[in-house]
């Protein structure tokens, strides 16, 4: 910190180049070390995915690179073995895509309602949106559970999708985004004779597209990794999502560590690919909520 400031004061560029270098190296080394530590668990599990599960049970998760015990057996088992991994994988994929698509559409619509109109009760309703963001979902687990039971939605994906379909954080973000769109567009649409819904569908939605990417990724991440609630409402193994399925492998009476480790590692891969491809949107999506504090 100190160095940074001293350097900032020196406007002479020649001096700056010379003085920069140690600082650059220092920062670079510091962050390389930090990233090294952060990436160790990934390296450890990647390594473990090539070892027999028994090795893991006996020595724990470690960084020993020992070719004599490593093989592609786990991967062979993952892709050809008799297990439900890819059923879960597909379920997760399906649920994520459906949940994200529905949540975005519904939340964007609601956000538009909040941003484009003045109506009675608007402020009260918007306070409700903010309030939901503050109530820990966990305390609703039990009443929601009995509700889902009474609605006869147990063991269905609807039970997972419906409660979050008008996501408060997503509504909030879309509303912020829409407040940057000039109201003249709406007025112009009305002059042209478009209906209220036509304006939304034909004029506003296309403009909102960039913000959809960020929210799709944020919601997609949450959905892909969602555990507790789906775990409570799903009981049919064929409907399990990946986190639930992986959790069921964690039992001393199944000898499933081979599949568990390689499966855990493999579950990170699709997110990793998406992340590398859409890095910018990920980061925008994550920071979207914080910008306005």
């Amino acid at each position, binding site marked *: 910190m100190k160095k940074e400031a001293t350097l900032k004061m020196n406007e002479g560029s020649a001096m700056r180049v010379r003085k920069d270098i140690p600082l650059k190296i220092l920062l670079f080394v510091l962050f390389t070390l930090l*990233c090294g530590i952060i990436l160790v668990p990934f390296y450890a599990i990647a390594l473990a995915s090539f070892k027999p599960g028994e090795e893991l049970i006996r020595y*724990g998760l470690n960084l020993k690179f020992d070719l004599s015990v490593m093989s592609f057996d786990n991967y062979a088992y993952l892709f050809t073995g008799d297990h439900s991994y890819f059923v879960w994988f597909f379920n997760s994929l399906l649920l994520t895509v459906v949940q994200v698509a529905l949540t975005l559409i519904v939340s964007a619509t609601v956000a538009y309602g909040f941003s484009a109109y003045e109506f009675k009760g608007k402020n009260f309703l918007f306070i409700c949106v903010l309030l939901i963001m*503050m109530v820990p979902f966990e305390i609703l687990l039990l009443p*929601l559970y009995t509700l889902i039971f009474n609605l006869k939605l147990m063991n269905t994906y609807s039970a997972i999708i419906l409660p979050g379909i008008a996501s408060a954080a997503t509504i909030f973000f879309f509303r912020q985004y829409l407040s940057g769109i000039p109201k003249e567009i709406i007025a112009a649409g009305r002059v042209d004779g478009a209906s209220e819904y036509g304006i939304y569908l034909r004029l506003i939605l296309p403009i909102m597209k960039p913000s959809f990417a960020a929210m799709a990724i944020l919601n997609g991440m949450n959905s892909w990794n969602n555990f507790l609630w789906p775990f409570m409402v799903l009981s049919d193994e064929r409907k399990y999502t990946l986190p639930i399925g992986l959790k069921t492998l964690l039992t001393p009476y199944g000898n499933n560590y081979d599949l568990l480790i390689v499966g855990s590692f493999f579950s990170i891969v699709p997110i990793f690919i998406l992340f590398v491809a859409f890095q910018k949107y990920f980061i925008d999506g994550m920071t979207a909520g914080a910008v306005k504090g």
Partner: protein
Amino acid sequence: MIKRFLYSQKVAPYVFVLPFILVFLIFWVYPLGSSFTMSFQKLSLGQEAEWVGLENYTKLLGDTIFLKAVMNSAVYMLCTLLILIPLPMLLAVLINNKFMWGREFFKSSLFFPALTSVVVAGTIFRLMFGEMDGSLINSFLGLFGIEPVKFLKGQVTGFIALLALATWRWLGVNILYFLSGLKSIPDDYYEAASIDGASAWQKFRMITMPLLKPTTIYVLTISIYAGLAMFIESLMIWNGNNSPKNIGLTIVGYLYRQGIEKSNLGYAAAVGIVLLVLAMTINMIQLAFSGLFKKED
């Protein structure tokens, strides 16, 4: 006629926000209300409820395991606040520095753990913190001649594992929050301060920290909730809701134990209400305080 009504400018906004109203009423207001009602009842699924007044709450006060759970959640929350606010703030300032090489790469790498599910991350950390001398952390400690530690059997060491997991997963995310906050601070401020001869520390104190306040408050608010409502991390680290001497039991863990494992729904609902009140109170105080400071600035 109906179409004219639905298409009028007066009615359209309600149509737009209708999904929210429905979800809010069905999945929030109703469950919250029934949670409140349940907390005054003795109740199991599929059985008749019995009105017991405040009994659940008075029982909670004398329930040593519940108090232990509250303690654990509170300590966990405090520790995450102490680690996951100053550290990411500092790192964000460093990474934002114009002398930084490979900024995007580091940003992404640090963020990456947030993409793993708690189930996977928790399993990895449970195995890393295993008590065998060959497990990752113990073999690392072994390099310095330190005897293997039974991490998950001790209160302090168990919390080290929990906090390591939390830090690992959330450090990068919080850095991103602070980075986006830093972006909104104009460079002129620093230049003006430099001309006035301010030191780096002074600039950090007088410019960076105050202007990052909205971000800090946001991070603080979500961290308080996340900390108090933590459960799955503990569930995965101990591979179950029964940690030795309940060192990893949290409020939500106790809610789960009473509600799901023992099916004392009324009692569990009371636990939930206590959590809600706790979270609301802490955040209201926090927001009030930060609001006060704002005026003084």
